[in-house]
């Protein structure tokens, strides 16, 4: 039966895979996917904390605070993905590419 640590390690691994993807891949769509991984890694830690630790009295009145956080993150991630993809499509129309290393109009 896995404990809190195992879940936290799983969340950290998924988060790190996300960071690795976000920093190393050039395709914007893949970048967005990597961002999703990072968010989900965080979600796992939130839910795990909620499951294994009881919040001290006074900090939160709800036993489901961590899960609620996770739900919010999922909703925000969905909105972010929609917005991000819309931007990707808009950028593609103008620049005919989705490779981030070629989108450098703000270069100094």
């Amino acid at each position, binding site marked *: 039966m896995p404990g809190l640590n195992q879940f936290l390690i799983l969340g950290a691994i998924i988060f790190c895979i996300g*960071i690795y993807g*976000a*920093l*190393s891949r*050039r395709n914007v769509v893949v970048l967005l996917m990597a961002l999703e991984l990072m968010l989900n890694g965080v979600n796992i830690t939130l839910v795990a904390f909620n499951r294994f630790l009881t919040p001290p009295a006074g900090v939160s009145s709800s036993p489901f605070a961590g899960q609620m956080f996770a739900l919010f993150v999922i909703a925000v991630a969905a909105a972010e993905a929609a917005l991000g993809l819309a931007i990707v499509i808009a950028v593609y129309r103008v620049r005919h590419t989705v490779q*981030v*290393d070629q*989108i*450098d*109009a*703000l*270069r*100094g």
Partner: protein
Amino acid sequence: MSPLLPLALLILLAPFLAFLLNAFVARRAWALAGAFTIIGVAVSFITSILVFFQVWAGARLDLTFPWLTIGPGQSRAVDLGLRIDPLTSVMMLAVSGVSLLVQIYSWAYLHETEFDAQGHPHVHRDPGFSRYYCWMALFTFSMLGLVLGSSLLTLFIFWELVGLCSYLLIGFWYDRGRTEARPLVAEGYEGQYADARLSPPEAAKKAFLTTRLGDLGLLIGILYLWSQTGTLTFSQLEGMVGSMPTEVATIAALLIFCGAVGKSAQFPLQVWLPDAMEGPTPVSALIHAATMVAAGVYLVGRTFFLFEHAPVAMLVVALIGGFTAFFAATMGLVNNDIKRVMAYSTVSQLGYMFLALGVGGLGAAMFHLFSHAWFKALLFLTAGSVIHGSGTQDMREMGGLGRLMPWTFLATLVAGLSLIGIPPLSGFWSKDLIIGAVRNHEPVVGVGRLFTLDLTVTGLLLFFALMTVMMTAFYTVRLLFLTFGGRWRGDPHLAHHVHEAPAAMLWPMLILIIPSIFVGLWGSPLVPVGHFVSFVEGRPFTEEMSLGDIALPLALALIGIVIAWLMYGLKTISPARVAALTGPLYRWAYNKWGFDDLYNALVGSVVVGFAWVVAWTDRVVVDGIVNWIAQVIVAIGRAGRVVQTGQVQTYAWVVFGGLVIVAAAVVLPTLGR
């Protein structure tokens, strides 16, 4: 309060109001502009007469108020104010009187008559008519302010204002270019050339800059005097001069004299006045003959107590004045431009005045200033009439104007004889006073004896004065013969266009004949009481006039007249032969003793060289520092732009790296616990 104060204010404010109205109201209404100035100056003139009679009766005005106070405990005041004494009242009469007649004269002078192919006259009014009267009103105001000032600072303010007006009026025809040298159209002078002349703006700049050189000395002198005495009021300075060290008085007097040298076109700053003739002739008559150029003499006369206390300064004044009188007259002998001959004559006569001041003849100098103002203004007005009537100002292209312009001829003749010093005209009495003053002067520095002649400075001064009498007679008679004698030598097509001056020009000239004849009597032994010199100097004055004193200058004048008559009237001596015989001397005088060339070379090498050094310093050192600062900033920016890749992932790396560092900083210290 003195009853003179309202009158003094009226004298000042009438022309100033005319100036304001002309500057802001009557800019397009030309007739109104002329009327404002004439009325304003007329009010000044009438009030000046009233003031004169009150001063004659013994009234005085000496009013000062502190303009600003500075120093510990507000202890030192800089004063402004008005002063009326005999000297002022006499100056005001001359300034406002000549100015009034010149204003009336100018009305017609600025209406140019031109003839078309059919010979019909067309009258053109100068487009700058209103502007002209605007500046003329300002000038009259400034000149009256100059003589009314009761402190050196007041005087200096108006001194600069008249300089400005002189600049503006010399450059009145600012759109005219240079006059190039051109072959003469004159019978008997074929193959000769009329000289090239500066453009009016160039002449104006030359006049302004040259006088500024002297004004710098005056300003330093004023500051020096103030630092030494703490006051600039004439009456207070006069009271202090007794306790003043001689060196202080000498330095102050010499510095003040610098200003006078510039303004009165004395050697070595005489170069500007002949070129100032590029202005309209009435301007030359008023500013560059009668009033402004005499301001230098007035300045020395006003601060005469200082000079009397400084024998060295007196000697310098006398030598500069005497030399200038001689030196300018030699240039007048050979010039062919009617106005320039008169300009040299003015410089020469101003030299006389300084000579008189230098030998202690304050009253004599002021009297010559006063009488000279009238007849020299008249002489210039007649020159204006001649130029207006004949369309040229080179005397070789004139001739025979005596019959064509009889009234102008009469006026020129009277003024010319007065200038020569023919008794009993004005110039005779005033010049005689000056020569008398030189004669009575104690010899200052003796060098030795040559035969029976004492080689003293006074002897030299007397030599200058007497030689100048002869040369004055020569160039005046030469001018008269070349202009009015013989028959028309110029372009034959123009001969029947030569016309007598219109009434508005003629009347001022005819009126000026009266003072040119009679003013001199005031300074003659013939007046029983109230001799000019005793009036101005405020002490009893009796003039001993022996026949011998009169005879020598008169004989020299007659010699000058006869030589000129032989050369230009009877033509028994050919002027060309004389010029050829005296070759180098003639060219030396004709080229103005080389002073224009010398100054051009000096300005060209020294001033331009210095300017080059300054420009180099500015370009390389000053600009270099500024550019270096800019380059450093650019380099910093260039280094900084490397960070801005525009790559979103680079930024993400930085953010992540920063996060790791922060996390490490937070977490690592807790690990040991």
